[in-house]
Structures are given as structure tokens and as C-alpha cells.
């Protein structure tokens, strides 16, 4: 457990350069620049948002085409809508809104599901202080190629505040 984000970052750099694999980092706010150090890949949620938006746009277009052109040709001043293209301008606002609606909600729901953060889920952080001002680095011994004593040696001068060893069955 560390008391400062910079200290944790420097320590992570040192450990990784010595071949230690860091399983997880828990922090009260995003630590910028930690992801490449501990090997967290960039998320692809942005692509998902684009796909959801595209779905929304398609649905809106199909829907309005059906309602306004095929099923019931709205007749304004004796000029019914025979094609979608002729009336396209009037459909832009709803197409836009529906695209945004689907992209935003689709992405938000995917995000919550991926994180397994849903109403009623138990707290997943290892220590309650990690949402306040403490930063936890989780290192699993079975992931490492080095022994426990070697790891202790490496950790010694990284400036941590607390070290907790747990046996996970």
C-alpha cells in the first residue's frame, strides 16, 4: 500500500523492469501513465460506442422511413412523401438524437457490465482506504519467476507504507 500516486508509479516501474508482474493497482482516482507500466491495454469501448451509434442511426432511418414514407405518406399541402430523400432534412434532428441516445446508453451499459459494477454488488476494493487517499498494488507470487525473498528484497526500497501478505486458497 502506498500513500502517493507518484511513489507507486516509480515503484511499479522499478519492479516491472526487474521482471515482476503486477496483478492489479487500486487507486482513488485514475493514475495517469500507470497503464503501460503494468500492462493494462487500452479499452475498446470507444469502438463499441461507434457501433451502438451506427445501430441507432440505422434504426432511426428504418423507423422513419417506415412511418413517414411507406406505411402512411404524410401529405402536406398535397405533397405526400414518396421518397425518404425528398424529406431528408426534416429527419436529421431525430436521426441525430437517436444516434446519440443509443451510443451513450449502449456504451454506459457495456461499461457497467464489463466492470461488473451493478446495483447491489459488494465492494470490490481490497481496503476501504483505496477510495480515499491510499494506493494499493497487488502482486501475486504464483505469477512471478522469482522467489518470495527476492521479491521482498525488491520491494524494500520502493517507499510503500504497508505490506500485507495473504494466502489465497
Amino acid at each position, binding site marked *: 500500500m502506498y500513500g502517493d500516486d507518484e511513489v507507486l508509479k516509480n515503484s511499479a516501474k522499478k519492479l516491472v523492469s526487474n521482471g515482476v508482474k503486477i496483478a492489479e493497482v487500486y487507486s482513488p482516482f485514475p493514475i495517469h501513465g500507470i497503464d503501460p507500466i503494468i500492462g493494462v491495454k487500452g479499452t475498446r469501448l470507444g469502438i463499441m460506442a461507434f457501433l451502438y451509434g451506427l445501430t441507432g442511426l440505422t434504426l432511426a432511418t428504418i423507423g422513419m422511413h417506415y412511418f413517414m414514407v411507406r406505411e402512411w405518406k404524410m401529405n402536406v399541402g398535397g405533397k405526400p412523401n414518396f421518397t425518404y430523400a425528398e424529406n431528408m432534412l426534416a429527419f436529421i434532428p431525430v436521426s441525430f438524437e437517436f444516434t446519440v441516445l443509443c451510443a451513450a446508453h449502449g456504451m454506459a451499459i457495456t461499461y457497467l457490465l464489463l*466492470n461488473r459494477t451493478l446495483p447491489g454488488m459488494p465492494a470490490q476494493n481490497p481496503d476501504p482506504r483505496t477510495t480515499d487517499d491510499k494506493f494499493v498494488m497487488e502482486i501475486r507470487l504464483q505469477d512471478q519467476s522469482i522467489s518470495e525473498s527476492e521479491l521482498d528484497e525488491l520491494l524494500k526500497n520502493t517507499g510503500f507504507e504497508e505490506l500485507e501478505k495473504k494466502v489465497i486458497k
Partner: protein
Amino acid sequence: MQKEAAIREPLILGHKTYHDVTEDVCKPIEDKAPRMWYILFTIALIIGLYGVGSICYLLGTGIGVWGLNKTIGWAWDITNFVWWVGIGHAGTLISAVLLLFRQKWRMAINRSAEAMTIFAVFMAGTFPLIHMGRLWVGYWVLPLPNHFGSLWVNFNSPLLWDVFAISTYLSVSLVFWYIGLIPDFATIRDRAKKPVAKRMYSILSFGWSGRAKHWNRFELVSLVLAGLATPLVFSVHSIVSFDFATSVIPGWHTTIFPPYFVAGAVFSGFAMVQTLLLVMRKAMKLEAYIHTKHVEYMNVVIMVTGSIVGTAYITELFISWYSGVEYEAYAFLNRATGPYWWAYWSMMTCNVISPQLMWFRKLRRSLLFTFFISIIVNIGMWFERYVIIVTSIHRDYIPAAWSMHYPSHIDIAVYIGTIGLFFVFFLLFARYFPVLALNEVKTILKGSGQSYKESPDYHKHH
């Protein structure tokens, strides 16, 4: 770590640590509410309930209880709607547009500004719903197949665009707000001692962990939502303005409306944020996070958008004459010199003259003056909508049909009632929710905090 120029004023005053930030924001939630909170809450609740009662009476009797007549078919109801939607523009602008521009000062105010936005849009939504008269068939605005034949809602109508715009805006703002709230609810959850509070905040925080991967996703989701919400902010009030601009009523049929409405909305929204935050920072002792610099930034936005609005008013006036259309010219002449001259000139004074005072550094850094102007601006913006709506229709093409609008007491009660309800929601928010985006403020503590700016280490590198 991003560092910024030392000559920039620090955004967080005092020598705060990460833990201090948590303490300062969580304290008001964990402590007993001050007596003033109960007094304000009771007042707001009574006014709100009076409004709800009036709405019930209106629904039971019909919208004939409003002061409308056959010439003036739209008056207070739509005025209030546009006023509230306009106020609801600041929050998402602050959190989305300013996020894209990487403005760090937004972090202290975005949470409460967004809460304000959501509650304001709730209040706005009330008006078109009750205007339907038969609230229980409100779902007819959705494109649902129905048992009356092959009849669909009209996708050519700006009123339907408005349905989509407002509901998208409301729900996307809500999601954006909540995604940011989850990590902060987790902070309160992990500090809570009372079992009920612990349980409640545990449910609200969705089991947030703070893993590096989750933060990585969190930041991307915030960024993409901001990207989506930015055009949304501009589209919503543009579409609201289409309700008028696509009609053929002189005074409404104007191409200048969309940008002018959006600027006006941001103008009134920031004014409402000022009104609320100036009180909140004092009551909740958040002076270190929301201080003169933040107020000054917001006043600059008010000044700029106020100038756009002023330019739009004058352009409109000029074009009405220059167009050579006598109906158009009369509509504007009548606004300025007709029986509603007082509304027009209140609007001009509040919206054109008052924001210009912000050019003076002393005035825009004065909290008392800002509070005063923020209220003046919102009075002015209410008059703007009233002037646009009522003065354009009260004298139509046949002088025999000319009329005046006198609000009934129900008109007034519903309006005042929504203000009461708005404050009920806002006070509940201030009592139970983290009013500052904890996780965001902590990220700027080192780059923009006072203690880090003053440290010798900081100056060594710059």
C-alpha cells in the same frame, strides 16, 4: 503528471492532501444537517407541494384554468418550459464541452452544475406534459403503433423533434452524471459507519473497485460521453428554438433563433450555477475549491454569451426593419413600444446591459455583485421568452382579435411550484450526494493546488 504555468492562479487553495479533499466533501454528508437546511427544505417543499396541488387541479379541470385566450394560445407554460430547459444547459456544457477543452476549473463545479441541469430539465419536462391536458396519454408522443389505424407521430414536426431532443438530453446527462458519481459514492461507502448509510451507498456505488483497468475505461467513457454530449447541448436548444422558428408567425420566423437560443441558454444556465454555488460553497465550507477564480471564469462565460444574446437582439431588430416586411417590422416595434414595452425593456436591461458590467475585473471578482447579477440575468431570461412568445402573438393580423395576456393564479402557482420543487431536489442532492467530483479534484490537486504551486520542487522544474 501534467503541470501548468506557475502564474496561473491555483484552483485549490490551502495546503490540502488527498485525505483532506475526501474529508471536506464527505463531512457535510456525514454530519447532521444544519438547521438552515431544514428551514430551506421546508420552505421549498411547501412551495413545491403548492405547485403539485395546482397541477392536480389543472389536470382535474383542464387547461382552461390558465389565463390563455383564443389569440394568445401559448404564454406562461411554454415560457417556463424554455426558461427551465435553458437553465438546464450549463451543467452539461461545463462537464462536456469544458472536458473536451481540458479546462480544469470545471472539476470543482461540474457535479453540482450537472445535478442542477438534470433537475431543471425535469422541471422543464413538466410543462409540455401538463400542457397536453390529458397527462395519462402522454406516451402518445412516442412512435407507437396504435388502435386508431395507421397513424404515426409526425416526424416532420419540430415539436416531435423536441420530444426526442429533450428526452435524449435528459437521459444522457443523467448517465454522464451517474458514471462520474459511482467512484465518489464508493468513497462515501467505504467511510460510512452507520449500517443504513453503508447499505445505501453500497447500492449506489455499484461495488466500484478502483482497478487500473476500470479507471482506464472510466476515463474513456467520460471522454466519449463528453464528445456525444457536446453536440447534444447545442442541438437541444436549437431544436427548442425550431418550435418557434419553423412557424410563420412574425417575430418567430427567424433564422437567427438557434444560435441565439443556445447562447441565451448557456447565459441563463451559468447564472443559475452562480446563484446556487455561491450559497453552497459558503454553507458547505467549500471555499477552498470553489473560489473567486472559478466565479470569475463563469462570469466571463456570462459576459460572452450575454454579448452574443445582446447582438442577436439588435440584429433581430435591424433585420425586422431591413426586411421590408411590414408585419415583421410591426412585431418588433410593438415589442419595444407596445403594451408590453415594460417586459421588453426589462429584458434589454437585464440581458444586454448587466453582463457588460463584467468587463470590470473588480466587479466580476466580487461575489456579492455576481450573486446579484446572476439573479438579474435569470429574471431577464424569463422575460426574453415571455417577450418572444406573448408579444409576437398578442396582436395578430386582425386588430379585432388583439388581446392581452393576464396570468391566472394557477399559471403563477405552477411556475413558482416548479421553482420550489427544483430547490427540493437540489437541497436533497446537496445533503446526500458528493457535491464535488472527488476523483477528478484529486487528479488536479498536484498540478493546480496551491501548496504544490508554492513548493520549491515545483519551481525547480519550471
